[in-house]
Structure formats: C-alpha cells, structure tokens
C-alpha cells in the first residue's frame, strides 16, 4: 500500500529526501526572526526609557549577532554577512518574513508526507508484533492521509474519474487497485487479529498460571529457608515471574512490609501464602482436571479451523463490499434506479462524488435495520431476572417477616418499659439505687 502510494505520487516530485531537514531549518529561521523581533522590541522599549527615546543602534546589532548568529550560526534570508545597521536588519526582516512563511508552508506539506509515511510504516511494524487494531487503523489512516494532503495541494493523486460503468474496467483501475489493497490490508489485519485473539486468552492463562505457581513455590521455599535460618541470597523475585506478575503475592508482600502490627501482619501474610500453596497443591493432586480448568485449555479453538474460516470469511466479505460499493457508485445503476428525466441525467451533478450519498446513506441504514429486525424477530433481548428458587424466595420472605416481627416485639417491649418507668417515677416511693448511681456519676 505504501509503495503504491509512493509510486503514484512520485510524478509530483514530492519525495525530496531533504524535505524534513528543509522543514526543520525553515522553522528555525522563522523562530530566529520572531525571537529577534521580540528581543529588539523589548530592548528598544527599555533603551528608549533610559536614553530619552533614542535607540542605540549598536546595541541592537550586537543583540542580533548574539541572539541569532552566535546561537544558531545562521544568516537571515538573503544576507551573506552579519548586519551592522539596524535599519538593514529591519528591512531584511520585513522582506524575509513573507519568504520564510511561504517556504514554511511549502515545506510543511513535504514534511507532512514524510511524517505520515514514517508514522504509517512504524505503526505497520508495530501491528505485526502487537496485533492491535489501533496500530492497523493508524497505519491505514497515516498512509491515506498522504493522499488526502496531496489532494488538498491539488497534486496528481489516484482518482477514478469518470467512474467506469463496466465492472471489470472498474476493477482494474489503478485507483481501484490501490483502494482494494488498502481495504484488504485493513480487512486481513482485522481477521488476523481475530485469529490471534481467539486463541491468545488460553495461552495467556496458561502462561499466567505457570508464573503464578512458580512465584508461589519460590515464595514458600524462601520462607522455609528463612525459617530454617538459612541465608536467602535474593531479596525479591524477578519481575516477570515474581510478585509483579502475581497480585496475590504482591498484596501479601505489601502486607508483610507495610503492615501496621508488623509481626502479626507479617505472620498472616506468610501464612496466607503458605496456605494458598497447600490449597493449590491439594487441588492439583485431588482433581486431575484442575490444571486444565485453571488454564481453560479445553476452550482453545482448533487453529486449522480458525485459519480456514478466516480465509473464507475474508473472501466473502471482500467480494460483497466491492460489489455493493460498485453498485452504489456506478452512474448507470444510479440512473437506472432513479429513472430521472433526461435533463437531470445529463446534469453535471450526477457525475459529482456527492451523488454517492444519495444511495450510500439509505443502503448503509438498511443493514443495521435488518440486524435490528432479525434481533427482534428472534427475540434476542433476554430480560434477565434474579433467578431465585422457590425455597430461596420463601427463605427470603421468612427472613423479612422474622425481622419485622422482631422489630415489632422490640418496640412493644420498649413502650412497656417506658410506661412502667413513668409509673414508677410518678410513685416517688423510693429512689432506685441504680438511678441514684447514674445521677451521682453524671452530677460530678
């Protein structure tokens, strides 16, 4: 795809290999002018404040020489020697600013072509290693961005105008081949990502389990060694197999190190790790399927089937997309379906790209609608309800009624107690010693 774009855009003479350098140099030149402008303005202001509004020329020239020439070793545009007269500098500045801006504008595009190409290639290489859709999408967009930029600059770019009415003619057009290759890249990459991702979780689980068991074993052995009074050479496990790969151990270690009641926390953490080791050992010994279930080995799909289905799936999708797209863009098809008056048929609007929208929007809308209808017919929307058995429902009901009963009883008892207390208070025959104790305690 990248090569096709390169070769198609090559007649424009845009692949100047010094374009990035030229861009950077231009940016620096522009910056030097801006810095000079700001510096002179500031210095002039300060100098005029001290010398009654007269600007010392030598100072400005010196400043320019220091700031621009000595710092960046560059000459202003169109000048070969350092300028000694500030008026010349100003004249040069005014003259060169436009030139620099124009040069920057041109160079920016040249630079962007390279930048997009570079990003595209880097993302493509990343996608080969990491199998992530973001890299694939990024690579696709970066390469297409070169054509979009070139189209903006009105350069020679791949085009399919006028759009062919014959399918074979359309199929063999240079622009169509590039579009097909670009889309195929996207399609095949996504299919490959699927093939990789459908088997990867099982592999990852297996790998993670291995690391976890190894880390657990190491931690237990280390602890045993410490208890036996032996010296332990390393303070921690490797990052890949050790605590970082295993949140439980990490957490246990944190508790051990950071624990508030250090001795007891440490004891707990060690005990947890050891108990987990015993639990896992016991599990693996007593249940022969335990390891396979932990890795979910049985869930791995057959690689041959995945490859086969990927190829057939891609081919079907590919052909369908090309056929539907051709129909949508074919002017004959549009004319046939719309059956427009001859005047409109000959109108220039029908050969504009925007005409695609006329069919694209409804056709694109048909597919999700069809999907929605299918989902509705097959009653996909499962309304999930809490699945409680009859016994569980009854138990819940019983629990609630029991709680209500208890509440009622408690409030009734409280009322009765309060009533009795009021009655006793009214009696005043004798002061309760408990009440007296309370009064005494709180009076003090």
């Amino acid at each position: 795809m990248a090569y096709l774009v390169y070769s198609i855009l090559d007649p424009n003479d845009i692949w100047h290999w010094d374009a990035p350098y030229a861009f950077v140099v231009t940016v620096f030149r522009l910056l030097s002018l801006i810095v000079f402008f700001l510096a002179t303005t500031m210095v002039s202001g300060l100098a005029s404040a001290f010398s009654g509004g007269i600007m010392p020329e030598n100072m400005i020239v010196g400043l320019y020489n220091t700031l621009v020439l000595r710092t960046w070793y560059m000459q202003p545009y169109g000048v070969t020697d350092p300028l000694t007269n500030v008026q010349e500098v100003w004249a040069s500045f005014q003259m060169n600013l436009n030139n620099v801006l124009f040069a920057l504008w041109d160079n920016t595009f040249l630079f962007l072509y390279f930048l997009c190409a570079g990003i595209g290639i880097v993302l493509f290489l990343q996608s080969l290693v990491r199998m992530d859709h973001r890299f694939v999408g990024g690579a696709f967009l970066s390469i297409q961005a070169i054509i979009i930029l070139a189209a903006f600059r009105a350069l020679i770019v791949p085009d399919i105008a006028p759009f062919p009415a014959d399918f074979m003619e359309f199929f063999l057009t240079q622009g169509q081949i590039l579009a097909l290759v670009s889309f195929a890249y996207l399609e095949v990459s996504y299919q490959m990502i699927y093939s990789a991702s459908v088997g990867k979780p099982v592999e990852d689980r297996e790998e993670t389990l291995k690391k976890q068991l190894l880390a657990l074993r190491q931690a237990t052995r280390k602890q045993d060694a410490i208890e036996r009074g032996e010296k332990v050479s390393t303070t921690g496990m490797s990052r890949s197999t050790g605590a970082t790969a295993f949140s439980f151990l990490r957490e246990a270690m944190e508790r051990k190190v950071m624990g508030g009641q250090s001795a007891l926390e440490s004891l707990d953490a060690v005990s947890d790790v050891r108990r987990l080791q015993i639990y896992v050992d016991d599990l693996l010994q007593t249940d022969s399927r335990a390891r396979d279930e932990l890795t979910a080995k049985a869930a791995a799909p057959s690689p041959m089937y995945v490859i086969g289905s990927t190829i057939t799936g891609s081919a079907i999708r590919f052909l369908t997309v090309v056929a539907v797209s051709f129909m949508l863009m074919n002017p004959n098809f549009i004319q046939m379906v719309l059956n427009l008056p001859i005047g409109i048929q000959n109108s220039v609007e029908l050969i504009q790209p925007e005409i695609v929208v006329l069919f694209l929007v409804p056709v694109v809308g048909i597919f999700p609608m069809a999907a929605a209808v299918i989902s509705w017919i097959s009653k996909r929307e499962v309304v999930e309800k809490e699945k409680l058995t009859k016994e569980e429902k009854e138990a819940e009901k019983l629990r609630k009624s029991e709680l209500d009963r208890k509440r009622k009883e408690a409030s009734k008892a409280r009322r009765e107690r309060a009533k009795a207390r009021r009655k006793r208070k009214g009696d005043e025959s004798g002061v309760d010693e408990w009440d007296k104790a309370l009064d005494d305690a709180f009076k003090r």
Partner: protein
Amino acid sequence: MITQRGFLVVFAGVLLLTSGFSFINFYLVLLGVYCVIGLVVTLPLFALTANLAGIEVDRQIDKVKVFSGDFLRVRVTIRNVSRRHFDFIEVHDQYPETWILAIGENFMASRIEPGSSMTFSYILQARMRGRYYLGPTEVIMRDRLGLHYYKRILKEQTEVLVYPTWKDVRRLESFAKQRQLGLMFGAHRTKTVGMGTDFAGFREYVPGDEFRLIDWKSSAKRGDMVIKQWEQEKNVQIICMVDTSGSMGNGYPENTKLEYAIRAAVLLTYMGLERKDLVGTCVFSDLVHGYVPPGTRPNHMYDVLEVLAMAEPQGWSDYETAISHVVTQSKKRSLIIWLTDLERSPAPLLNAMKTLVANGHKSLVISPFGPWFEAPVGQFGPVEKVLSEAVSEELWERRNKIARALSRFGINVINVGPEDFLPTIMQTYEQAKQRGVAMF
C-alpha cells in the same frame, strides 16, 4: 453496538468520504464507501448468529461457607445450547470487590461451537466476613472483525457466607502447642468432691462405692479399705453480647470495633468449647439479630460463626431489649460479657444491668474506645488534631462516668483498643475460670 474498533472504521470512512467530496476525488470516495460498507455489510449475518440467549453459564464452588481468608475455587462452565457457533465470546465472572483473585483469571475469551461447552476456573481469597454473591456474569459476543458486539449480563448469582476470620484461633492453637497447654476441660478447681483430676483426700470405704475407686496401696497400708477422692471440676457459662450498632462500624475497614468484637467472640467461643465451657453469643443492636444459647453441641461453633458472619453495623444499641431476650432464654447463672462501645446514653445500659443482676447473672463490659480505632492523630492537620483530641477527652470522660456508676454494682468496664482487645477477652475468660464465676 459498535465497538471502539468499529468507531475507528467509521471515522476513517467519514474522513475519506468528506475528503473525496471536498477535493472531488473518486478514489477517496471509493475507499470511504469501502470502509462504511465494510462496517455494516455483515451486521445482519452477525445478528442472525449472535443468539446470546443460547448461552448458559453455570457456576460451581467448592464450599458455600468459608472462613475469611480462606481460598475458594470457582468453576465456570459456558454452554452453547444454540444451533450456531459464536466466533468470539468473552465471559467475565464477577466476584466481590473486597476479595482477592489468588490464582487464575475470572475472564475467558474463545470461540464456542454449537452444543459444546468450555470450563474455566479461578481461585479467590475471601477477605471479609459477611454474605457475598459471586456473579453476575457478563457475556460479550463480538463479530470476527471486532466491529460489533452484543452484551448480556447473566444475573445468576452464587451466595457465599464468609465466617469471621479463624486466624486468631490458629494463632492461639500454635501458641498453645508451643506452651504445651493442655486442652482438658475444667481448669477451675472447686472444693466439691467428685470426678476430677486433682487429689482431694481419702475416706473409708462404704458399701455401695465402686471398686475401681478403692486405692489399694493405701488400703494395704491402713489395713482397711480406703477410697481415693478427687476434686470435682466444674465449668462456667458465658454469654457474649456483641453490640452491632452503627457506631461499632467506625474505624479502619477490616479493623472496625465490630470486627474486633466479632473476633473476640469467636475466640471466646473457641476457648470455651475447647474446655467444655458453655459459651453463648447474642448479636444485637436495636433488636436481637441472633442468639445462640450456650451449648457444647458439635455444631455450636458454626451456629455462632453464622450469626456473627451476618452482623452488620447498623441501628442503635438497645441493651434492655437484648438482655430481656437473653434472660428469658437462659435461666442459668451466667457471666455476661458485653462487647460494646458505650456510645449510647447510659440510662438504658444501667437498666439492662439492673435486669441482669436481678436475675443472678454476673457481668463485665469490654468496651472498644472509638478514637483508638480510628486514624492516628498524627495524620491530622492542626485543626482536626485539636478537634479529635477534644472529642476523645469528652468521650473518655463520659465512659469514665459510666464505669464509675457500674463499678458500684461490681460491674467492671475495661477500655480496649485494637492491640489489647483479643488479649483482654482471653484474660477475662481465664480470670472467670479461676474465680469460678457463673459455674454450673
């Protein structure tokens, strides 16, 4: 539903289409059309195959009741009962936030054929006591290119009851082993002669005495038959009153006053059962949430654990209701240990004590002091520091007054913090045994 990947394709399609329209370029338009059509063209087929109702998830666990800190294996089986395959299915089985995933992963992604199933498992560590639910299970189905997805949440949940931690008991056991402490019952001595292990004296044989009680050596020396007598050993009855009012929930998570009170109750019950003493537990706030009468049944410990596992800090402390319930249920003289923070008004507490003493019970209050369970004062700013110190002083003064009032009737109040809560309960139990409080 369109995935992130799908949105990227939409973006690319729209960008290319608009660029094509702007620069009148059919190549860009064609590529844009490819992207947009490519996004939606297989959507009806995906909708036809993605029958998520055909997915069944079955979750199995080894135990439904575990101790806090124990490990639990969760097995999840996903069945495709439909007649179509699923190209890519993701299953996330959810577990409580406070638990730790110890081994394995609670996530699986694969392809599943019609009528087939796949099983994965993972090991969790249950961390905090209480009633928990494993699940729901989230099932996500994607198309081959990952452009669209359907999601379904299977709300089937598995209930797990997590008992309070057993680590204190384990520590106690290892400590006891180190000190070679015997686990025989009846550490308390009485002056009553009967069956026991401590020598009490000799008496003359009277007809009817069992021959096995005759001490033949002494009989030979005396020339008359002598019976050897032993001091009878008796046990105590204790009822642990665990206050679960809202204020007991204050403190660091996992280290609240209530959690310590529960750990203390577990420890006390365990120690009591080991020595064949009767230890009951009452969990109360504004009503009695659970009461396990003193007993030595094999399942007694589990009954206590179950009641304690369900305890939640809520409501207020109604001591009178709690003691009325206990007094009506338990007629025998008991030592009633209150595990309460005394943050309610003192009058109801004194009334409760009155009832308790009137029924012949003994009582003791072990009271966690709130500020000791909360953030250290050093972590506060100057204003908060002053405020917290003022509150602490106020609370301290208040509980001293309650303690003074109760001490007039022989009821001690012991203020405890996180460090000395468990040692205090052990010490209290030992002292009760030594003093022979509430023997039966």
